[in-house]
């Protein structure tokens, strides 16, 4: 790759890591940011990217994706997932370990990292399994998995039910200074529920998973994190009560971080009416009251970041009946538009706050040091057109999965281009 000089001109820089927000040009040389000034003159040999009317933000980081490889290449691959990510403005993404074989050993993790490097579009940083085979019985070799490049460990999708094992995991992970990520669900209580338990599940006659199936597990894990001093990261919060529990825990100084998905910020269980399998996801879409509490938590910093839980499935699987269809929503290519429409439009968040929740905070949690617009930093930037209105057409997705609950939704805010290592890695206008 030739690493020339690139001038991003005319845009508004929005970077909460340097507290910069205003008109500025960004000069990039040899993959690094070398200057940020209100105006930088064009010079010979300098390629120019016109960012007039656009926001220049740090590249987004997604702490929670499923690239399905190895094992279910019919759903997604590291390559198709990387393409989906870069189009969504993400310069780094963390695939979950529920692959086949499970990423519970060095070989599988290294293979995924190397495949990410071969594709070369984004930084692919796996999350290793917490227990062997995600069986919830025996801890994996943490040290080896972190050495192989994992940024965290999780049995995502399969909550670690044993309180004793969770205590040990939180304790032992302290050696490495990295988080244990929990999909917080008491599966005895959710008992095969396929959607949120409430008026809609009662009307549709579908088995409901009560809000408490999440909150009792969040409460247990917070107690264990508080005792051990280990770093707990709670995946995809869905209930108002969980937000409240984490807010209180943070006030007590518990080492906890957490994430929320764009779909939980934008949709409620009403989206399931008509047996809409595209809205079948775990944790389930909940009520308007929960949605507003999640937004409030994201706003006040209780919720650290947005993660998509990009979970691709084949069309034939998603087109099955509601009980039979798998849980999961693809999110990479709609994340910015959905979040901007749900959060910026109604003035819940500023662009600077959104840049923090989608880029700076998740990069910090993942331990990535190359996100932020400071001189001498690697140039990983996402350029956003805040005014662009567009309609979601899943047929145009780079992801293998062409099923989305946002199909046909009108969104405002679109990723215009992505710069990675100083090169234009995606240009929507090209």
């Amino acid at each position, binding site marked *: 790759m030739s690493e020339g000089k690139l001038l991003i001109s005319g845009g508004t820089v929005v970077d909460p890591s340097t507290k910069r927000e205003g008109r500025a040009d960004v000069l990039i040389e040899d993959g690094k940011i070398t200057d940020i000034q209100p105006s930088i003159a064009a010079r010979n040999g300098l390629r120019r990217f016109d960012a007039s009317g656009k926001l220049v933000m740090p590249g987004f980081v997604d702490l929670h994706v499923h690239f399905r490889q190895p094992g279910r290449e019919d759903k997604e691959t590291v390559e198709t997932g990387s393409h989906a990510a870069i189009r969504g403005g993400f310069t780094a993404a963390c695939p979950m370990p529920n692959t086949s074989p499970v990423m519970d050993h060095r070989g599988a993790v290294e293979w995924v990292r190397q495949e990410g490097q071969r594709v070369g579009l984004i930084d692919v940083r796996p999350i290793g399994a917490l227990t062997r085979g995600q069986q919830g019985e025996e801890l994996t070799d943490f040290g080896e998995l972190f050495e192989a490049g994992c940024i965290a460990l999780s049995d995502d999708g399969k909550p670690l039910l044993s309180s004793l094992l969770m205590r040990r995991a939180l304790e032992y992970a302290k050696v490495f200074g990295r988080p244990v990520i929990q999909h917080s669900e008491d599966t005895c209580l959710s008992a095969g529920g396929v959607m949120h338990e*409430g008026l809609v599940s*009662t009307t549709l006659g579908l088995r409901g998973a009560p809000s408490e199936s999440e909150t009792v597990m969040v409460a247990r894990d917070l107690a264990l994190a508080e005792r051990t001093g280990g770093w707990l990261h709670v995946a995809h919060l869905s209930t108002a009560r969980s937000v409240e529990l984490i807010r209180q825990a943070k006030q007590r100084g518990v080492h906890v971080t957490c994430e929320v998905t764009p779909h939980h910020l934008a949709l409620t269980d009403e989206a399931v009416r008509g047996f809409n399998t595209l809205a079948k996801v775990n944790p389930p879409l909940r009520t308007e009251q929960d949605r507003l509490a999640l937004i409030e938590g994201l706003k006040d910093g209780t919720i650290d970041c947005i993660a998509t839980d990009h979970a691709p499935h084949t069309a034939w699987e998603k087109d099955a009946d509601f*009980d*039979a269809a798998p849980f999961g929503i693809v999110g990479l290519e709609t994340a910015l538009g959905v979040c901007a429409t749900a959060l910026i439009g109604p003035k819940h968040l500023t662009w600077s706050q959104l840049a923090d929740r989608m880029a700076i905070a998740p990069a910090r949690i993942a331990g990535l040091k190359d996100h932020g617009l400071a001189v001498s930093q690697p140039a990983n930037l996402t350029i956003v057109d805040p005014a662009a209105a567009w309609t979601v057409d899943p047929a145009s997705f780079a992801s293998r999965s062409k099923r989305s609950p946002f199909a046909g939704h009108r969104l405002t805010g679109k990723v215009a281009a992505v710069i990675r290592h100083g090169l234009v890695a995606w240009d929507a206008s090209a």
Partner: protein
Amino acid sequence: MAEAAVAREAQGLQWTKKDLLGLEDLSAEEIRLVLATAESFREISLRPIKKVPALRGKTVVNLFFEPSTRTRTSFELAAKRLSADMINITASASSLTKGETILDMVRNLEALKVDVLIIRHAAAGVPHTIARQTNASVINAGDGAHEHPTQALLDLLTIQRQKGRIEGLKVSIIGDIAHSRVARSDLWGLTKLGACVTLCGPPTLMPSHIEDLGARVTWDVAEAITDADVLMLLRIQHERQEAALVPSLREYRLRYGLDEARLRSAKPDVLVMHPGPINRGVELDSYVADGPNSVILDQVTNGVAVRMAALFLVSGPPKVEE
């Protein structure tokens, strides 16, 4: 059918839906149209020659993914009494060839040019998923805990024939409301036609927010029985015990079962109904099931008429050349 045409005329309403999936989707007028059509068909089953040519040349398929005797038989008789060609497919999930989905199966049936699919499935929404993807008409014969529209329609027809009206009646549905498609369809139908519905059962068998659908909810069976014009008992399934929803069937019978003593506290002319099959000695005492207040067998008779009406209406108006 002349009778049905008269019925439609009287209601001043044409049936426009391709499918019959649930009573949530029907207006009060549409429900009355089905009942009026069923009323006109009811007499056919009382004739010595129980057959009219209304659906001659139509192909109707009973596609049952869950065991059923009475509903399947009722639909089969309804189709045959209207002269439709009827086939039965009993398909458990395991009988689908590996990798084949329900939709594959339905597309195959559609390629065989069938007109009406009658679908029963243990999972809620299956008939709806299928209906969206086929041109054939779909009748929901019970989907999970969601709806069982023809059962509710036959319940409405039975109440209307016995009481002369539905509006203003007090109807108590007692039993496992949470897992009952009959309770949901009955609730929609009864409230749309102006009845007051009380749902009664222990809190473990009561789905959350059901009161938001317009029902009164009580855990006290005495309260549900007093003043009721109709008592509808629901089957308690043995497997509910395993899920810790009721401590034991004995406990349920003592707390909620309708026996002679409880019946004495009801109105003398109360109707006792049950969608079947009855768990004798659990939710319903034999004396009550077979007693003078019971209209359980009338429900079965009316079921055929209601299903004839459903098949006739979703099949659309007869073509001119017929």
